[in-house]
């Protein structure tokens, strides 16, 4: 799949933002006044900024409100509802902390649950697609939820939780890569089933229907970037998880080191998210003799 910057930024930053809202909702931490304002402002900037980035890849963003109508079948529509619900509940909860120094615990818990539900629903947009075998697996929502929990814990300063979650996210990512690399082959979809001609002999794409590029190839058959995949995987693991854990573990940890850990984590997540799209093979590529 084409690794569109808007979608990479959207999933990365909204994942972090909703992860922050999760921990804030649990009351970990439960700041009040100005400190609470800074925390919530950052979480909202990330979550809402991510959502806005996602509208950049719409052909007609002015009709975006229509995306709320089909929640009965569409995960994308459910995502619209879940994110708005989370943002409203957490706004009320945050207002209590910022302006009244009161923590309405129940509201926070509901908001935390909604925040993680939003991340899970977002990941279902990808996991539901049978056409992309690498994504069509329970590990896709699991991975994105763990990423969000770990990133949120890191950004809200929950070092005690951030360290094991970061390690877990790194391990989950490695295992998702390992199983994902085999999933297209395991799906059983090949040029033979795509054309129905497999029973007659070995099928080979002889001549494509068009000599130039087209929407399908640009959008769904992204093969160029994959040659650097292994290097990027390493960079993603080191920056996203290993380095932040190391920085948090240093005995003289302070605000600057925490900031470095956060920036390193974001850079690492961006790298792995780029791979999430670039490495995902859509079965339509088979019709073109590509994967």
């Amino acid at each position, binding site marked *: 799949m084409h690794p569109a910057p808007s979608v990479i930024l959207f999933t990365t930053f909204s994942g972090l933002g909703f992860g922050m809202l999760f921990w804030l909702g649990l009351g970990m931490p439960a700041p009040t006044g100005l400190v609470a304002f800074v925390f919530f402002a950052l979480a909202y900037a990330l979550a809402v900024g991510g959502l806005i980035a996602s509208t950049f*890849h719409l052909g007609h963003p002015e009709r975006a409100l229509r995306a709320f109508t089909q929640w009965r079948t*569409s*995960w*994308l529509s459910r995502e619209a509802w879940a994110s708005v619900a989370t943002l409203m509940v957490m706004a009320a909860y945050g207002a209590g902390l910022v302006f009244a120094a009161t923590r309405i615990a129940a509201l926070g818990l509901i908001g935390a649950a909604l925040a993680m539900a939003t991340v899970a629903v977002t990941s279902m*947009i990808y996991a539901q697609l049978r056409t992309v075998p690498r994504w069509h697996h329970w590990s896709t929502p699991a991975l994105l939820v763990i990423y969000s929990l770990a990133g949120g814990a890191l950004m809200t300063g929950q070092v005690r939780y951030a360290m094991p979650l970061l390690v877990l996210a790194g391990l989950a990512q490695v295992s998702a890569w390992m199983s994902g690399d085999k999933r297209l082959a395991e799906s059983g979809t090949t040029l033979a089933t795509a054309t129905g001609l497999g029973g007659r*002999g*070995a099928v080979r794409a002889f001549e494509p229907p068009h000599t130039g*590029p*087209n929407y399908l190839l640009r959008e769904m058959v992204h093969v160029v970037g994959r040659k650097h995949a292994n290097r990027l995987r390493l960079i993603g693991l080191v920056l996203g998880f290993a380095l932040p854990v190391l920085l948090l573990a240093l005995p003289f940890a302070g605000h600057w080191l925490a900031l470095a850990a956060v920036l390193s984590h974001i850079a690492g997540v961006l790298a792995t998210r780029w791979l999430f799209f670039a490495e995902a093979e859509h079965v*339509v590529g088979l019709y073109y003799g590509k994967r």
Partner: protein
Amino acid sequence: MTELPLSTERRLGLVIDLDTCVGCHACVVSCKGWNTENYGAPLSDQSAYSGAGSGTFLNRVHSYEVQPDNGAAQLVHFPKSCLHCQDAPCVTVCPTGASYKRAEDGIVLVNESACIGCGLCAWACPYGAREMDAAAKVMKKCTLCVDRIYNENLPEVDRVPACVRTCPAGARHFGDFADPDSAVSILSAERGGMDLMPEMGTRPTNKYLPPRPRDQLQETDILAPYLAPVTDEPKGFLGWLDRTLSALPKGPL
């Protein structure tokens, strides 16, 4: 509404005969022509005369080589457009309701004025049957020429999809698969009409007829096997010539 109808009254679709298709791309051109001038936004081209042109098409013809274990390879021309699936994943993923499947005839359509151009339906289609138009920024797909097949302003013979009307080889057939006595149902049953990627669970309406087996060249001379050359290496004078020429240093070519 993106909930799929449980069943449709009629199941309109195409039979595509891979045995007959000659790969002329006439259906591609007639589809582009009709659908640029009629239903919805035109099918735009970008830098059409630049050498790196690109454009929206609702029907494209691939060509495949099939190499059987024994015998000659076969070339199969393979037109591909929307299959108007009964379990159309492109419809259920749509967040806006722009994509829908009609309960009366099973045609899958996009309401372009409701489409936000998110592209998710194109991701959900296994067959590459949907293309986002780069100028109109809405999703385009085969309408089964819904504006021809019911169009009483057209002579009756033209009330079929443009690709079917155009195909000079008669490789495309249009009809109702819900009617077991329709020409397409009979054709598909007789010739073993197949689904593309059945494992995707989309239950396509369109059926593809597999190419018939090719004739085998028969050995007509019963003595021929006894006269088969005993060696592939040239002998005698030819052998000497072959060895000598091979030994010469390479010429200017």
